[in-house]
Protein backbone atom coordinates (compact mmCIF):
# COMPACT_ATOMS: atom_id res chain seq x y z
CA UNK A 1 0.00 0.00 0.00
CA UNK A 2 1.21 3.50 -0.81
CA UNK A 3 2.58 5.09 2.38
CA UNK A 4 0.74 8.02 3.90
CA UNK A 5 2.67 11.28 3.75
CA UNK A 6 2.80 12.96 7.16
CA UNK A 7 4.41 16.40 7.43
CA UNK A 8 5.34 18.08 10.71
CA UNK A 9 5.85 21.86 10.69
CA UNK A 10 7.82 23.04 13.69
CA UNK A 11 8.57 26.67 14.58
CA UNK A 12 11.03 26.18 17.45
CA UNK A 13 14.01 28.54 17.34
CA UNK A 14 16.66 26.99 19.56
CA UNK A 15 18.57 23.87 18.56
CA UNK A 16 17.60 21.47 19.92
CA UNK A 17 14.16 22.88 20.77
CA UNK A 18 11.39 21.49 22.90
CA UNK A 19 9.03 22.37 20.04
CA UNK A 20 10.91 20.02 17.71
CA UNK A 21 10.99 17.43 20.50
CA UNK A 22 7.20 17.61 20.80
CA UNK A 23 6.82 17.39 17.02
CA UNK A 24 8.98 14.24 16.98
CA UNK A 25 7.00 12.65 19.84
CA UNK A 26 3.76 13.33 17.93
CA UNK A 27 5.00 11.99 14.57
CA UNK A 28 6.36 8.85 16.24
CA UNK A 29 3.09 8.25 18.06
CA UNK A 30 1.06 8.80 14.88
CA UNK A 31 3.37 6.53 12.91
CA UNK A 32 2.92 3.77 15.51
CA UNK A 33 -0.88 4.11 15.55
CA UNK A 34 -1.05 3.96 11.77
CA UNK A 35 1.36 1.01 11.60
CA UNK A 36 -0.97 -0.85 13.95
CA UNK A 37 -3.77 -0.14 11.48
CA UNK A 38 -1.64 -1.52 8.65
CA UNK A 39 -0.78 1.86 7.11
CA UNK A 40 2.87 2.65 6.42
CA UNK A 41 3.84 6.29 6.91
CA UNK A 42 6.51 8.57 5.48
CA UNK A 43 7.38 11.45 7.77
CA UNK A 44 8.86 14.77 6.70
CA UNK A 45 9.76 17.51 9.15
CA UNK A 46 9.77 21.17 8.07
CA UNK A 47 11.95 23.30 10.39
CA UNK A 48 10.76 26.88 9.94
CA UNK A 49 13.94 28.22 11.53
CA UNK A 50 15.83 27.20 8.39
CA UNK A 51 13.27 29.01 6.22
CA UNK A 52 12.98 32.21 8.28
CA UNK A 53 14.78 34.45 5.76
CA UNK A 54 13.08 32.81 2.79
CA UNK A 55 9.66 33.43 4.37
CA UNK A 56 10.46 37.13 4.90
CA UNK A 57 11.71 37.41 1.31
CA UNK A 58 8.56 35.75 0.00
CA UNK A 59 6.54 38.44 1.75
CA UNK A 60 8.58 41.16 0.06
CA UNK A 61 8.88 39.69 -3.44
CA UNK A 62 5.67 37.67 -3.70
CA UNK A 63 7.37 34.43 -4.68
CA UNK A 64 9.02 31.62 -2.70
CA UNK A 65 12.64 30.56 -3.15
CA UNK A 66 13.46 26.97 -4.00
CA UNK A 67 13.67 25.57 -0.45
CA UNK A 68 10.51 27.34 0.71
CA UNK A 69 8.69 26.23 -2.45
CA UNK A 70 9.60 22.62 -1.60
CA UNK A 71 8.30 23.03 1.97
CA UNK A 72 5.03 24.64 0.82
CA UNK A 73 4.56 21.88 -1.76
CA UNK A 74 5.21 19.18 0.85
CA UNK A 75 2.57 20.65 3.18
CA UNK A 76 0.11 21.01 0.29
CA UNK A 77 0.57 17.41 -0.84
CA UNK A 78 0.64 15.89 2.67
CA UNK A 79 -2.09 13.49 3.77
CA UNK A 80 -1.92 15.03 7.25
CA UNK A 81 -0.14 17.83 9.04
CA UNK A 82 1.27 18.16 12.55
CA UNK A 83 1.78 21.86 13.38
CA UNK A 84 3.81 22.80 16.45
CA UNK A 85 4.69 26.31 17.64
CA UNK A 86 6.26 27.84 20.71
CA UNK A 87 4.06 30.36 22.51
CA UNK A 88 5.35 33.89 22.02
CA UNK A 89 3.59 36.86 23.59
CA UNK A 90 0.35 35.00 24.27
CA UNK A 91 0.01 33.42 20.81
CA UNK A 92 1.73 31.39 18.10
CA UNK A 93 5.10 32.76 17.05
CA UNK A 94 5.32 35.28 14.21
CA UNK A 95 7.41 32.85 12.18
CA UNK A 96 4.77 30.14 12.52
CA UNK A 97 2.02 32.52 11.43
CA UNK A 98 4.12 33.88 8.56
CA UNK A 99 4.58 30.40 7.11
CA UNK A 100 0.84 29.87 7.02
CA UNK A 101 0.41 33.40 5.63
CA UNK A 102 2.44 32.50 2.54
CA UNK A 103 0.81 29.08 2.13
CA UNK A 104 -1.99 29.05 -0.45
CA UNK A 105 -5.24 29.43 1.48
CA UNK A 106 -6.71 26.37 -0.27
CA UNK A 107 -3.74 24.13 0.61
CA UNK A 108 -5.19 22.68 3.81
CA UNK A 109 -8.85 22.26 2.85
CA UNK A 110 -10.16 18.93 4.27
CA UNK A 111 -6.69 17.99 5.52
CA UNK A 112 -6.36 16.46 9.03
CA UNK A 113 -4.21 18.71 11.23
CA UNK A 114 -2.93 18.01 14.71
CA UNK A 115 -2.11 21.22 16.61
CA UNK A 116 0.45 21.46 19.38
CA UNK A 117 2.36 24.14 21.29
CA UNK A 118 5.13 24.53 23.83
CA UNK A 119 5.58 27.17 26.51
CA UNK A 120 7.39 28.01 29.70
CA UNK A 121 4.27 27.76 31.82
CA UNK A 122 1.01 25.83 31.72
CA UNK A 123 -0.90 29.13 32.00
CA UNK A 124 -0.69 29.55 28.21
CA UNK A 125 -2.24 26.20 27.31
CA UNK A 126 -5.45 27.73 25.96
CA UNK A 127 -3.39 29.20 23.10
CA UNK A 128 -4.28 25.96 21.29
CA UNK A 129 -7.94 26.89 21.37
CA UNK A 130 -7.89 30.66 21.12
CA UNK A 131 -5.12 30.99 18.49
CA UNK A 132 -4.23 27.80 16.62
CA UNK A 133 -7.71 26.30 16.26
CA UNK A 134 -9.23 29.45 14.66
CA UNK A 135 -6.24 29.72 12.28
CA UNK A 136 -6.77 26.21 10.96
CA UNK A 137 -10.52 26.72 11.02
CA UNK A 138 -10.07 29.64 8.65
CA UNK A 139 -7.95 27.42 6.39
CA UNK A 140 -10.78 24.83 6.48
CA UNK A 141 -8.56 22.05 7.77
CA UNK A 142 -10.00 19.19 9.84
CA UNK A 143 -8.41 19.91 13.21
CA UNK A 144 -7.98 16.95 15.58
CA UNK A 145 -10.10 17.43 18.77
CA UNK A 146 -7.14 16.91 21.10
CA UNK A 147 -4.40 19.53 20.85
CA UNK A 148 -1.21 18.95 22.81
CA UNK A 149 0.34 21.65 24.96
CA UNK A 150 3.68 20.99 26.65
CA UNK A 151 4.90 23.35 29.38
CA UNK A 152 8.47 23.03 30.62
CA UNK A 153 7.28 21.17 33.72
CA UNK A 154 5.49 18.55 31.57
CA UNK A 155 8.78 17.15 30.35
CA UNK A 156 9.55 15.93 33.89
CA UNK A 157 6.12 15.09 35.27
CA UNK A 158 3.50 12.39 35.06
CA UNK A 159 -0.23 13.14 35.12
CA UNK A 160 -2.26 13.56 38.26
CA UNK A 161 -5.82 12.69 39.30
CA UNK A 162 -7.39 15.35 37.14
CA UNK A 163 -4.95 15.62 34.18
CA UNK A 164 -3.37 13.11 31.84
CA UNK A 165 0.39 13.27 31.51
CA UNK A 166 2.10 14.43 28.33
CA UNK A 167 2.52 10.89 27.00
CA UNK A 168 -1.18 10.10 27.38
CA UNK A 169 -2.14 13.36 25.65
CA UNK A 170 0.27 12.70 22.81
CA UNK A 171 -1.12 9.18 22.35
CA UNK A 172 -4.73 10.39 22.39
CA UNK A 173 -4.04 13.12 19.82
CA UNK A 174 -2.11 10.69 17.60
CA UNK A 175 -4.92 8.12 17.86
CA UNK A 176 -7.46 10.71 16.77
CA UNK A 177 -5.26 11.82 13.87
CA UNK A 178 -4.76 8.21 12.78
CA UNK A 179 -8.51 7.62 13.00
CA UNK A 180 -9.16 10.49 10.58
CA UNK A 181 -6.61 9.09 8.14
CA UNK A 182 -7.72 5.46 8.28
CA UNK A 183 -11.43 6.15 7.98
CA UNK A 184 -11.40 8.97 5.48
CA UNK A 185 -10.79 8.74 1.75
CA UNK A 186 -7.69 10.71 0.74
CA UNK A 187 -8.40 14.40 0.17
CA UNK A 188 -8.44 15.39 -3.50
CA UNK A 189 -5.09 16.86 -4.44
CA UNK A 190 -4.66 20.20 -6.11
CA UNK A 191 -3.78 20.14 -9.76
CA UNK A 192 -1.87 23.26 -10.80
CA UNK A 193 -2.64 22.78 -14.46
CA UNK A 194 -6.35 22.35 -14.03
CA UNK A 195 -8.16 24.94 -16.11
CA UNK A 196 -11.80 25.87 -16.42
CA UNK A 197 -12.62 25.81 -20.17
CA UNK A 198 -13.15 29.32 -21.47
CA UNK A 199 -16.70 28.74 -22.70
CA UNK A 200 -17.61 27.85 -19.12
CA UNK A 201 -15.97 31.03 -17.79
CA UNK A 202 -17.82 33.09 -20.38
CA UNK A 203 -21.12 31.39 -19.59
CA UNK A 204 -20.63 32.10 -15.88
CA UNK A 205 -20.45 35.82 -16.65
CA UNK A 206 -23.29 35.80 -19.17
CA UNK A 207 -25.58 33.62 -17.09
CA UNK A 208 -25.61 36.00 -14.15
Amino acid at each position, binding site marked *: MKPLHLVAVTAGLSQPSSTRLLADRLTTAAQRQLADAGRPVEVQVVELRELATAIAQHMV*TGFPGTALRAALDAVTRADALIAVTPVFTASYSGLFKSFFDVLDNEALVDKPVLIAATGGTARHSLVLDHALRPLFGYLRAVTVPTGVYAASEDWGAAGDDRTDGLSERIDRAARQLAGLLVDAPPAPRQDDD*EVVPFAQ*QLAAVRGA
Partner: protein
Amino acid sequence: MQFGIFTVGDVTPDPTNGTTPSEHERIKAMVAIARKAEEVGLDVFATGEHHNPPFVPSSPTTMLGYIAARTERLILSTSTTLITTNDPVKIAEDFAMLQHLADGRVDLMLGRGNTGPVYPWFGQDIRQGIPLAIENYALLHQLWREDVVDWEGKFRTPLQGFTSTPRPLDGVAPFVWHGSIRSPEIAEQAAYYGDGFFANNIFWPKEHFIRLIDLYRRRFAHYGHGTPEQAVVGLGGQVFMRKNSQDAVREFRPYFDNAPVYGHGPSLEEFTEQTPLTVGSPQEVIDKTLTFRESFGDYQRQLFLMDHAGLPLKTVLEQLDLLGEEVVPVLRREFAAGRPAGVPAGPTHAALVARAAADADGAAQTGQRTGTDTLA
Protein backbone atom coordinates in the same frame (compact mmCIF):
# COMPACT_ATOMS: atom_id res chain seq x y z
CA MET B 1 11.23 38.14 -33.23
CA GLN B 2 10.58 41.59 -31.77
CA PHE B 3 12.65 43.35 -29.11
CA GLY B 4 11.60 46.31 -27.08
CA ILE B 5 11.25 47.93 -23.70
CA PHE B 6 8.41 48.29 -21.24
CA THR B 7 8.11 50.93 -18.57
CA VAL B 8 6.18 51.11 -15.32
CA GLY B 9 6.34 54.90 -15.29
CA ASP B 10 7.31 55.18 -11.62
CA VAL B 11 8.55 58.42 -10.09
CA THR B 12 11.19 57.10 -7.67
CA PRO B 13 13.91 59.02 -5.84
CA ASP B 14 17.43 58.26 -7.07
CA PRO B 15 18.83 56.44 -4.00
CA THR B 16 22.38 57.59 -4.75
CA ASN B 17 21.65 61.31 -4.43
CA GLY B 18 18.07 61.64 -3.17
CA THR B 19 16.81 63.63 -6.16
CA THR B 20 13.30 62.91 -7.43
CA PRO B 21 12.18 63.95 -10.90
CA SER B 22 8.96 65.96 -11.17
CA GLU B 23 6.02 64.33 -12.91
CA HIS B 24 6.68 66.59 -15.87
CA GLU B 25 10.33 65.51 -16.03
CA ARG B 26 9.39 61.83 -15.76
CA ILE B 27 6.77 62.05 -18.51
CA LYS B 28 9.21 63.81 -20.83
CA ALA B 29 11.87 61.24 -19.90
CA MET B 30 9.51 58.41 -20.92
CA VAL B 31 9.08 60.08 -24.32
CA ALA B 32 12.86 60.50 -24.67
CA ILE B 33 13.30 56.82 -23.79
CA ALA B 34 10.74 55.76 -26.40
CA ARG B 35 12.44 57.86 -29.10
CA LYS B 36 15.80 56.42 -28.10
CA ALA B 37 14.34 52.92 -28.44
CA GLU B 38 13.60 53.61 -32.09
CA GLU B 39 16.96 55.31 -32.64
CA VAL B 40 18.90 52.25 -31.41
CA GLY B 41 16.83 49.87 -33.54
CA LEU B 42 14.38 48.37 -31.06
CA ASP B 43 10.93 47.34 -32.29
CA VAL B 44 8.55 48.05 -29.39
CA PHE B 45 7.86 50.61 -26.67
CA ALA B 46 5.20 49.71 -24.10
CA THR B 47 3.92 51.80 -21.21
CA GLY B 48 2.09 50.73 -18.08
CA GLU B 49 -1.19 52.23 -16.90
CA HIS B 50 -1.55 53.40 -13.32
CA HIS B 51 -3.98 55.57 -11.40
CA ASN B 52 -2.05 56.30 -8.24
CA PRO B 53 1.21 57.98 -7.23
CA PRO B 54 4.14 57.45 -7.62
CA PHE B 55 3.20 56.50 -11.20
CA VAL B 56 2.55 58.97 -14.04
CA PRO B 57 1.10 57.04 -17.01
CA SER B 58 -2.65 57.26 -16.38
CA SER B 59 -3.42 58.06 -20.02
CA PRO B 60 -1.44 55.71 -22.27
CA THR B 61 -3.03 56.50 -25.65
CA THR B 62 -2.35 60.22 -25.18
CA MET B 63 1.31 59.49 -24.54
CA LEU B 64 1.56 56.88 -27.30
CA GLY B 65 -0.15 59.21 -29.80
CA TYR B 66 2.50 61.86 -29.09
CA ILE B 67 5.29 59.28 -29.47
CA ALA B 68 3.70 58.01 -32.69
CA ALA B 69 4.06 61.48 -34.19
CA ARG B 70 7.77 61.53 -33.33
CA THR B 71 8.73 58.05 -34.49
CA GLU B 72 8.67 56.18 -37.79
CA ARG B 73 8.94 52.45 -37.14
CA LEU B 74 8.44 51.80 -33.43
CA ILE B 75 5.44 49.64 -32.44
CA LEU B 76 3.56 51.33 -29.59
CA SER B 77 2.07 49.08 -26.97
CA THR B 78 1.00 48.88 -23.33
CA SER B 79 2.03 46.89 -20.30
CA THR B 80 -0.74 46.70 -19.33
CA THR B 81 -4.07 48.29 -20.29
CA LEU B 82 -6.54 47.67 -17.48
CA ILE B 83 -9.33 45.57 -18.95
CA THR B 84 -11.10 45.45 -15.58
CA THR B 85 -11.55 49.10 -14.69
CA ASN B 86 -11.56 50.80 -18.12
CA ASP B 87 -14.78 50.83 -20.08
CA PRO B 88 -14.20 48.42 -22.98
CA VAL B 89 -16.05 50.85 -25.27
CA LYS B 90 -13.50 53.57 -24.50
CA ILE B 91 -10.60 51.13 -25.02
CA ALA B 92 -12.06 50.22 -28.43
CA GLU B 93 -12.31 53.88 -29.42
CA ASP B 94 -8.99 55.08 -27.99
CA PHE B 95 -6.87 52.32 -29.51
CA ALA B 96 -8.60 52.45 -32.90
CA MET B 97 -7.90 56.19 -32.99
CA LEU B 98 -4.27 55.57 -32.02
CA GLN B 99 -4.03 52.84 -34.66
CA HIS B 100 -5.08 55.32 -37.38
CA LEU B 101 -2.73 58.06 -36.16
CA ALA B 102 0.21 55.63 -35.95
CA ASP B 103 -0.56 53.98 -39.31
CA GLY B 104 -1.04 50.62 -37.65
CA ARG B 105 2.04 50.65 -35.38
CA VAL B 106 -0.10 49.75 -32.36
CA ASP B 107 -0.95 46.75 -30.25
CA LEU B 108 -1.89 46.41 -26.60
CA MET B 109 -1.47 44.13 -23.65
CA LEU B 110 -4.45 43.60 -21.38
CA GLY B 111 -4.10 43.04 -17.66
CA ARG B 112 -6.32 43.08 -14.60
CA GLY B 113 -4.34 45.39 -12.35
CA ASN B 114 -3.52 44.47 -8.76
CA THR B 115 -3.89 47.81 -6.98
CA GLY B 116 -6.92 47.21 -4.76
CA PRO B 117 -8.30 50.78 -4.47
CA VAL B 118 -8.23 51.39 -8.26
CA TYR B 119 -11.24 49.08 -8.63
CA PRO B 120 -13.59 51.08 -6.34
CA TRP B 121 -12.17 54.37 -7.67
CA PHE B 122 -13.48 53.28 -11.06
CA GLY B 123 -16.70 51.82 -9.70
CA GLN B 124 -15.64 48.15 -9.76
CA ASP B 125 -14.98 45.31 -7.29
CA ILE B 126 -11.57 43.59 -7.23
CA ARG B 127 -13.20 40.28 -6.30
CA GLN B 128 -14.79 40.36 -9.77
CA GLY B 129 -11.37 40.76 -11.44
CA ILE B 130 -11.49 37.63 -13.60
CA PRO B 131 -15.18 37.94 -14.62
CA LEU B 132 -14.55 41.63 -15.50
CA ALA B 133 -11.56 40.66 -17.65
CA ILE B 134 -13.63 38.00 -19.42
CA GLU B 135 -16.76 40.03 -20.06
CA ASN B 136 -15.02 43.31 -20.93
CA TYR B 137 -12.72 41.65 -23.43
CA ALA B 138 -15.58 39.74 -25.03
CA LEU B 139 -17.22 43.13 -25.68
CA LEU B 140 -14.00 44.80 -26.86
CA HIS B 141 -13.38 41.90 -29.26
CA GLN B 142 -16.89 42.29 -30.68
CA LEU B 143 -16.70 46.10 -30.98
CA TRP B 144 -13.62 45.85 -33.21
CA ARG B 145 -15.09 43.13 -35.43
CA GLU B 146 -18.76 44.02 -35.82
CA ASP B 147 -19.87 47.38 -37.19
CA VAL B 148 -23.12 47.47 -35.25
CA VAL B 149 -23.24 45.91 -31.82
CA ASP B 150 -26.20 44.98 -29.66
CA TRP B 151 -24.89 43.90 -26.32
CA GLU B 152 -25.96 43.18 -22.77
CA GLY B 153 -23.74 42.10 -19.88
CA LYS B 154 -23.27 42.10 -16.16
CA PHE B 155 -20.89 45.00 -15.61
CA ARG B 156 -21.85 47.93 -17.87
CA THR B 157 -25.00 49.42 -19.34
CA PRO B 158 -26.36 47.60 -22.42
CA LEU B 159 -25.64 48.80 -25.96
CA GLN B 160 -28.29 48.96 -28.69
CA GLY B 161 -27.21 49.66 -32.24
CA PHE B 162 -23.80 50.96 -31.15
CA THR B 163 -20.92 51.52 -33.57
CA SER B 164 -17.45 52.10 -32.13
CA THR B 165 -15.64 54.75 -34.18
CA PRO B 166 -13.24 55.05 -35.84
CA ARG B 167 -13.46 51.53 -37.24
CA PRO B 168 -10.08 49.72 -36.91
CA LEU B 169 -7.51 50.64 -39.57
CA ASP B 170 -7.92 48.48 -42.72
CA GLY B 171 -10.70 46.62 -40.91
CA VAL B 172 -8.16 44.80 -38.75
CA ALA B 173 -8.28 45.03 -34.95
CA PRO B 174 -5.06 45.86 -33.08
CA PHE B 175 -3.22 42.73 -31.96
CA VAL B 176 -3.97 41.86 -28.34
CA TRP B 177 -1.67 40.29 -25.76
CA HIS B 178 -3.10 39.01 -22.51
CA GLY B 179 -0.66 39.65 -19.70
CA SER B 180 -0.57 37.55 -16.59
CA ILE B 181 1.72 36.75 -13.71
CA ARG B 182 -0.18 33.91 -12.10
CA SER B 183 -3.63 33.21 -13.54
CA PRO B 184 -4.27 30.12 -15.70
CA GLU B 185 -7.68 31.67 -16.51
CA ILE B 186 -5.93 34.41 -18.49
CA ALA B 187 -3.70 31.93 -20.34
CA GLU B 188 -6.91 30.09 -21.23
CA GLN B 189 -8.55 33.33 -22.41
CA ALA B 190 -5.59 34.17 -24.67
CA ALA B 191 -5.64 30.63 -26.08
CA TYR B 192 -9.40 30.71 -26.73
CA TYR B 193 -9.18 33.84 -28.88
CA GLY B 194 -5.87 32.90 -30.52
CA ASP B 195 -4.39 36.11 -29.07
CA GLY B 196 -0.88 36.56 -27.70
CA PHE B 197 0.11 35.66 -24.15
CA PHE B 198 2.66 37.82 -22.35
CA ALA B 199 4.19 36.30 -19.23
CA ASN B 200 5.65 39.07 -17.13
CA ASN B 201 8.27 36.80 -15.68
CA ILE B 202 10.61 39.39 -14.19
CA PHE B 203 9.81 38.89 -10.52
CA TRP B 204 9.26 35.14 -10.35
CA PRO B 205 11.25 31.95 -10.91
CA LYS B 206 10.96 30.36 -14.35
CA GLU B 207 9.36 27.06 -13.25
CA HIS B 208 6.11 28.90 -12.59
CA PHE B 209 6.05 30.45 -16.07
CA ILE B 210 7.01 27.23 -17.81
CA ARG B 211 3.73 25.75 -16.49
CA LEU B 212 1.69 28.82 -17.47
CA ILE B 213 3.12 29.14 -20.99
CA ASP B 214 2.89 25.41 -21.57
CA LEU B 215 -0.81 25.58 -20.63
CA TYR B 216 -1.35 28.50 -23.05
CA ARG B 217 0.40 26.69 -25.90
CA ARG B 218 -1.59 23.47 -25.36
CA ARG B 219 -4.91 25.31 -25.18
CA PHE B 220 -4.03 27.50 -28.22
CA ALA B 221 -3.73 24.26 -30.23
CA HIS B 222 -6.85 22.83 -28.57
CA TYR B 223 -8.89 25.77 -29.90
CA GLY B 224 -7.60 25.17 -33.42
CA HIS B 225 -5.41 28.24 -33.90
CA GLY B 226 -2.35 26.20 -34.92
CA THR B 227 0.25 24.01 -33.30
CA PRO B 228 1.47 24.74 -29.75
CA GLU B 229 4.69 26.05 -31.33
CA GLN B 230 2.67 28.61 -33.32
CA ALA B 231 1.17 30.27 -30.24
CA VAL B 232 2.30 33.87 -29.76
CA VAL B 233 4.38 34.32 -26.62
CA GLY B 234 5.95 37.43 -25.12
CA LEU B 235 8.37 37.56 -22.20
CA GLY B 236 9.77 40.17 -19.88
CA GLY B 237 13.34 40.73 -18.88
CA GLN B 238 15.29 43.14 -16.74
CA VAL B 239 18.90 44.14 -17.26
CA PHE B 240 21.60 46.57 -16.22
CA MET B 241 24.84 46.57 -18.18
CA ARG B 242 28.32 47.98 -18.19
CA LYS B 243 31.27 46.77 -20.23
CA ASN B 244 32.69 45.23 -17.07
CA SER B 245 30.41 43.05 -15.04
CA GLN B 246 31.72 44.33 -11.69
CA ASP B 247 31.02 47.95 -12.68
CA ALA B 248 27.43 47.04 -13.51
CA VAL B 249 26.91 45.34 -10.15
CA ARG B 250 28.51 48.20 -8.22
CA GLU B 251 26.47 50.87 -10.00
CA PHE B 252 23.11 49.04 -9.96
CA ARG B 253 23.19 47.67 -6.40
CA PRO B 254 21.80 50.79 -4.63
CA TYR B 255 18.95 50.96 -7.16
CA PHE B 256 18.23 47.26 -6.67
CA ASP B 257 18.39 47.44 -2.87
CA ASN B 258 15.89 50.31 -2.74
CA ALA B 259 13.70 49.36 -5.71
CA PRO B 260 9.95 49.40 -5.29
CA VAL B 261 8.44 45.86 -5.44
CA TYR B 262 11.49 43.79 -4.49
CA GLY B 263 13.86 46.15 -2.66
CA HIS B 264 14.80 45.33 0.94
CA GLY B 265 14.17 41.65 0.18
CA PRO B 266 16.51 39.14 -1.41
CA SER B 267 20.06 40.11 -2.29
CA LEU B 268 20.95 41.14 -5.83
CA GLU B 269 22.80 37.84 -6.22
CA GLU B 270 19.83 35.73 -5.04
CA PHE B 271 17.40 37.64 -7.24
CA THR B 272 19.66 37.33 -10.27
CA GLU B 273 19.88 33.59 -9.76
CA GLN B 274 16.12 33.08 -9.44
CA THR B 275 14.65 35.57 -11.96
CA PRO B 276 15.52 36.91 -15.44
CA LEU B 277 17.31 39.94 -13.92
CA THR B 278 20.82 40.22 -15.34
CA VAL B 279 23.33 42.73 -13.99
CA GLY B 280 26.59 42.43 -15.85
CA SER B 281 28.20 42.70 -19.25
CA PRO B 282 26.28 42.75 -22.55
CA GLN B 283 27.53 39.21 -23.16
CA GLU B 284 25.96 38.03 -19.88
CA VAL B 285 22.65 39.59 -20.93
CA ILE B 286 22.88 37.80 -24.28
CA ASP B 287 23.65 34.47 -22.61
CA LYS B 288 20.81 34.72 -20.10
CA THR B 289 18.23 35.91 -22.64
CA LEU B 290 19.09 33.03 -24.97
CA THR B 291 18.22 30.56 -22.19
CA PHE B 292 14.59 31.79 -22.29
CA ARG B 293 14.05 29.88 -25.53
CA GLU B 294 15.14 26.64 -23.86
CA SER B 295 12.60 27.12 -21.07
CA PHE B 296 9.65 28.58 -22.96
CA GLY B 297 10.11 27.59 -26.61
CA ASP B 298 10.71 29.93 -29.57
CA TYR B 299 8.80 33.14 -28.86
CA GLN B 300 7.77 36.35 -30.56
CA ARG B 301 8.45 39.33 -28.34
CA GLN B 302 11.06 40.16 -25.73
CA LEU B 303 10.52 43.30 -23.64
CA PHE B 304 13.11 44.62 -21.19
CA LEU B 305 12.44 46.79 -18.14
CA MET B 306 15.19 49.42 -18.22
CA ASP B 307 14.07 52.64 -16.53
CA HIS B 308 12.69 52.04 -13.05
CA ALA B 309 13.87 52.37 -9.44
CA GLY B 310 15.08 55.96 -9.83
CA LEU B 311 17.72 55.38 -12.53
CA PRO B 312 18.58 58.78 -14.07
CA LEU B 313 17.52 59.42 -17.67
CA LYS B 314 21.15 59.74 -18.80
CA THR B 315 21.93 56.26 -17.47
CA VAL B 316 18.83 54.76 -19.05
CA LEU B 317 19.77 56.21 -22.44
CA GLU B 318 23.28 54.72 -22.09
CA GLN B 319 21.67 51.38 -21.27
CA LEU B 320 19.54 51.60 -24.42
CA ASP B 321 22.66 52.28 -26.51
CA LEU B 322 24.22 49.08 -25.15
CA LEU B 323 20.99 47.14 -25.64
CA GLY B 324 20.49 48.32 -29.21
CA GLU B 325 24.11 48.18 -30.34
CA GLU B 326 25.61 45.22 -28.55
CA VAL B 327 22.83 42.95 -27.33
CA VAL B 328 19.83 42.95 -29.67
CA PRO B 329 21.74 42.44 -32.97
CA VAL B 330 23.32 39.30 -31.51
CA LEU B 331 20.00 38.11 -30.08
CA ARG B 332 18.27 38.62 -33.45
CA ARG B 333 20.91 36.52 -35.16
CA GLU B 334 20.98 33.78 -32.52
CA PHE B 335 17.19 33.52 -32.17
CA ALA B 336 16.82 33.38 -35.98
CA ALA B 337 19.31 30.51 -36.15
CA GLY B 338 17.57 27.22 -35.57
CA ARG B 339 14.12 28.77 -35.41
CA PRO B 340 11.70 26.16 -36.81
CA ALA B 341 9.94 27.17 -40.04
CA GLY B 342 6.40 27.14 -38.62
CA VAL B 343 7.09 29.55 -35.76
CA PRO B 344 5.42 32.90 -36.51
CA ALA B 345 7.25 36.24 -36.43
CA GLY B 346 6.21 38.96 -33.99
CA PRO B 347 2.78 40.42 -34.83
CA THR B 348 2.58 43.53 -37.04
CA HIS B 349 -0.32 45.39 -38.60
CA ALA B 350 0.92 44.51 -42.11
CA ALA B 351 0.98 40.81 -41.22
CA LEU B 352 -2.54 40.96 -39.75
CA VAL B 353 -3.85 42.71 -42.88
CA ALA B 354 -2.19 40.08 -45.09
CA ARG B 355 -3.66 37.27 -43.01
CA ALA B 356 -7.14 38.80 -43.11
CA ALA B 357 -6.86 39.05 -46.93
CA ALA B 358 -5.65 35.44 -47.15
CA ASP B 359 -8.49 34.26 -44.91
CA ALA B 360 -11.02 36.14 -47.07
CA ASP B 361 -9.50 34.61 -50.24
CA GLY B 362 -9.55 31.16 -48.72
CA ALA B 363 -13.18 31.58 -47.68
CA ALA B 364 -14.14 32.81 -51.17
CA GLN B 365 -12.37 29.90 -52.87
CA THR B 366 -13.92 27.39 -50.50
CA GLY B 367 -17.25 28.99 -51.31
CA GLN B 368 -16.70 28.55 -55.06
CA ARG B 369 -15.62 24.96 -54.65
CA THR B 370 -18.60 23.99 -52.58
CA GLY B 371 -20.97 26.26 -54.42
CA THR B 372 -22.10 28.10 -51.30
CA ASP B 373 -22.37 31.87 -51.22
CA THR B 374 -19.95 33.02 -48.54
CA LEU B 375 -20.70 36.67 -49.23
CA ALA B 376 -24.30 36.37 -48.14
